[in-house]
């Protein structure tokens, strides 16, 4: 039941060898990389040309220097933030999946719950950060909670869409041979929803990083958000940007970890791949 997926998926595109794949990956990465480098060079030139003070906008070279200089502190901060993101993201995933399953399995209760979930989504979560700090202090808990309330929604909504988008004729087919709702949920709806779930998780992981930073802004003694806030009060703008770079890298790594998981777990999922669109 489990082994054929990978084998089948590989043979689906026999023309794409590993080498060709790498070549295509490279040709996909090159244009954005070139654009990025060009932007950085222009930025550097402009700063030097117009003599912009570093505390207003540092040159890329100053940011790199700050990155190197503060690498130890940034690494510690990144670790703190990564732990918040990880716990928050996993919990948001669990909550999102649970909400979707409850709404689908217990239709009546679901009809009551769904509008409330949507209503809750319209509350600006950032505004909750100080309250969570008030309730739970300056530790991990308020950040994780903030991430959960920010990131569970895309998971719940996408999973719900996946659970509900099973073809009605297939459900009819199963019902006709006496399948119960639970059996249809377990054997058809849940596996069918996995690609949707993964799409929701990809959104959720980026929200999780945002949630962690916002949580740290509201009150923290560690993490990249704390570094950003502390550095800006010191007018150490290069460090602010250096921390931002680390945040971006962290977000990128997390995102591609989720995408890797998607490829391994649901190889039948349709690929939303802008780079390789033919």
């Amino acid at each position: 039941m489990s082994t054929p997926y990978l084998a089948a998926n590989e043979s689906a595109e026999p023309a794409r060898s590993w080498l060709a794949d790498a070549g295509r990956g490279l040709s996909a990465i090159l244009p954005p990389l070139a654009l990025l480098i060009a932007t950085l060079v222009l930025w550097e030139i402009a700063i030097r040309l117009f003599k912009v003070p570093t505390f207003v906008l540092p040159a890329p070279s100053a940011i790199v220097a700050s990155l190197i200089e503060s690498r130890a502190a940034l690494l510690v901060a990144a670790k703190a933030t990564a732990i918040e993101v990880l716990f928050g993201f996993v919990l948001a995933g669990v909550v999102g999946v649970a909400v979707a399953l409850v709404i689908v399995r217990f239709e009546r209760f679901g009809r009551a719950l769904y509008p409330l979930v949507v209503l809750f989504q319209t509350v600006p979560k950032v505004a909750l950060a100080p309250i969570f700090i008030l309730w739970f202090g300056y530790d991990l808990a308020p950040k994780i909670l903030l991430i959960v309330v920010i990131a569970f929604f895309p998971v719940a909504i996408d999973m719900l869409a996946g659970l509900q988008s099973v073809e009605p004729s297939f459900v009819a087919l199963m019902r006709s041979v006496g399948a119960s709702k639970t059996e249809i949920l377990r054997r058809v709806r849940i596996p069918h929803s996995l690609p949707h779930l993964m799409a929701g998780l990809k959104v959720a992981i980026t929200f999780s990083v945002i949630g962690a930073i916002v949580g740290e802004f509201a009150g923290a003694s560690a993490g990249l958000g704390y570094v950003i806030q502390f550095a800006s009060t010191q007018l150490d703008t290069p460090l602010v940007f250096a921390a931002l770079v680390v945040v971006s890298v962290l977000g990128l790594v997390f995102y591609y970890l989720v995408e890797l998981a998607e490829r391994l777990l649901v190889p039948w999922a349709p690929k939303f791949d802008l780079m390789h669109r033919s």
Partner: protein
Amino acid sequence: MTTAIASAYPASVAASAPVTDTAPIHIAAHGIAVEFSLNGRRQRVLHDINLSVPKGSFVSLIGPSGCGKSTLLKVMAGLVQPVEGTVTVAGLAPQEAARRRMIGLVFQDATLLPWKNAVENAAFLLMTGNTNVKRADAMARAAEMLRLVGLEGANDKMPSQLSGGMRQRVAIARALALDPEVLLMDEPFGALDAITREEMSQCLLDIWERTGKTIVLVTHSIDESVFLSREVHVMGTGPARIIETLPITLPHPRTEESFADPAFTRAEARLRSLLIESHRTRGTGK
């Protein structure tokens, strides 16, 4: 459950595929009416439909789009409850017959599970509901059915690796795996190209001749209905009813040459004029 196809369908059935006119009635519908509520208004989709299908027969339903063919098929499958009238399949209420795996269903879309390979898909319904069928037995049976529909060697293929025609064959194999007495098919070849359609028609005819199942086929193709059926029920709208039941006298076994048979041409012409007529009445409304 037997897995050996040879024992399940003895050669004697194959030799004498066409049923005699004295065959018992397998599907009986009397005075069927179906209503759907649309924006709060009740809309009558089927009105006083009478239909009887002899055991082992192959009948087609043909008619203008929206006349209620699919709905009638769903009534026979127990998926839609009529507000008036009775339907029985092998003397049972359709839902009971379906629960006993006496009804196999095939729709226009193959509706295969993309995370399961061909043989797992074909075995899926066999392992659904309250069954004591063992997984190994179900898979063996599904593999037999894939061979029957001409898909040997494709057991491990994923749906995304199959063509539309192959997917539809898997869907047919999935229905046949239940060893149903009745096969209900709703435009099963509707999404296929002309040549694949003809191949699939031939395949279906072979299956019918070898298994002797009762088959009801909904189709939009006049050729297909004549080539395959012993009887074609032409449906009309306003209100939906069966306007004529045309026996097809085309001799068996039917092959490529059947298309040139005068009986084929006659039936085709008759169906064409009936359909044109029913389209016209649809235009003028009720």
